[in-house]
């Protein structure tokens, strides 16, 4: 496996737990997001993504554990808008205030020069609607205004909760390019989604959460190194052989088996040793590997 110089970790969530009464929304969650990369935070709706991000952003207090940005809890950050840009689903706008005035208010409170506003309105495509009241904006326009708000302080860290919500396919593609561009500029990007396909092409690593717990934390580069699916006539002896050899594998929903870190010749030998016949064998693209993993780790028995 190629060695990679470890980038400094910018977002660090450690043992994070958040309970609401008897309900544990987030249970002992730990993961990191390094600089210069897009970290996908994936999970089905209700898995605990938004709660985790709200704890990270100081909007909700963790019951246990910590969530740090640049080594500090959010509320200890100096001039947080210049360090962290956030887009949250729960964030609202005053319906009677124009989009431009919304940005002016936040720039004023954050001590950010108002000259940032016009270029951002251009970037998100809201220049023409900037003087209209937000109450008349579509969901997609609100999402664009939220993005402009996140970028107001030119932050090195971006935390975006479901940024593609409400956007049309062209908007989703635009978001993907932005995410990639920000990471290439050396920013840290943490982006959540319940819909894998939205961000599969742009993430460098994925953290998958289900029922409040992390079920997978993987580098995309690792997924692309020889991940192969195989279909065999009798799956049980094949799984037993893989287990016996300590080979990482997943049984996919369609009955095929995804195997990491082995090439076709190895797999053929294992199958022969187990006395099963290979009926189909193919390599998986990174997207397919990610999807296979996402489905496997999120589709199991609900706790």
């Amino acid at each position, binding site marked *: 496996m190629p060695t990679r110089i470890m980038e400094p970790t910018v977002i660090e969530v450690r043992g994070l737990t958040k309970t609401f009464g008897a309900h544990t929304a987030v249970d002992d969650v730990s993961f990191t997001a390094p600089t210069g990369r897009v970290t996908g935070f994936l999970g089905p709706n209700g898995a605990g993504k938004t709660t985790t991000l709200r704890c990270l952003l100081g909007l*909700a207090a963790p019951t246990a554990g910590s969530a740090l940005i640049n080594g500090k809890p*959010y509320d200890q950050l100096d001039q*947080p808008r210049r360090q962290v840009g956030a887009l949250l689903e729960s964030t609202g706008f005053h319906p009677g205030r124009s989009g431009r005035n919304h940005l002016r208010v936040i720039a004023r409170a954050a001590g950010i020069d108002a000259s940032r506003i016009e270029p951002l309105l251009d970037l998100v495509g809201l220049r023409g609607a900037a003087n209209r009241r937000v109450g008349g904006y579509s969901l997609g326009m609100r999402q664009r205004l939220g993005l402009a708000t996140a970028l107001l302080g030119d932050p090195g860290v971006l935390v975006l909760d479901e940024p593609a919500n409400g956007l049309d396919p062209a908007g989703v593609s635009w978001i993907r390019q932005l995410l990639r561009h920000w990471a290439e500029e050396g920013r840290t990007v943490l982006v959540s989604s319940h819909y894998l396909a939205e961000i599969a092409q742009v993430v460098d690593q994925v953290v998958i959460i289900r029922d409040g717990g992390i079920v997978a934390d993987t580098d995309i580069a690792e997924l692309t190194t020889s991940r192969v699916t195989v279909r065999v006539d009798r799956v049980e002896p094949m799984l037993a052989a893989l287990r016996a050899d300590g080979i990482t594998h997943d049984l996919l929903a369609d009955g095929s088996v995804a195997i990491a870190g082995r090439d076709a010749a190895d797999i053929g030998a294992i199958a022969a040793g187990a006395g099963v016949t290979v009926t189909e064998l193919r390599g998986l693209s990174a997207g397919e590997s990610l999807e296979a993993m996402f489905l496997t780790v999120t589709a199991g028995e609900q706790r």
Partner: protein
Amino acid sequence: MNDLLAAEWLKLRTTRLLIGTIPLALVLSAAAVAGEIVTGHGGTGAGGLETSEGIRRLFAVSGSGAIVVLVVGIIISAGEYRHGTAADTFLTTPRRHRVVTAKLAVSALIGLTAGLLIAAVSLGVAVCLYPVKEATFPLGDRDVWLTLAGVPVYTSLFAVLGVGVGSLARNQTLAVGSALAWFAVVEHTLVNLASDIGKWLPAAAGQAIVRTPIYGLLSPLAGVALLTAYAIAISTVGVRTATRRDA
């Protein structure tokens, strides 16, 4: 802190809250003063209207504008939760007590300004309408000026109280409804049930500040002290609520 004060002021300038409410406070106060003069107990001529009690009763009704200002204070704080702007506000200023402090300061200034306008309008209405009742408005009387001076104090403390109530309740509709119910019904009922505790309640403290001629009220200065204490106490709890609860 200057940036925060400017931002809170900008929030108010970029919505219709003040334009929609402060004129209402002025109209209510003017109408109340006019009503008191025209239908009041002073009778025609120099009799009641020109007495100290007549003048104090007159401007006490201008305190009805204070309720409007209280509602403005509630909307300034609870409105952030209603529209979901609290998250963006706290992302900008995670030390939430600073946000509430800025709101308290801005609302106090709004209350003060509204109170000065209410006092001016009330005075204007009185000067114009006294001749209708064949009375002369005693502009030189110190009762006039002492009473009018209480109005901006009353309204600024009520605005501050409103911000405190709003950050405590967070549900704007509930907060406005409870506050109106309190001042319209609950406090009167309490006073009727136990008149000796009545003077210690917030509305009575406000009435004392504008020297309302009701038997048993505190002195104006004691009213200021008591209403300030209420405002500080409720705002302190409001700050703690805003800080500790998840936004």
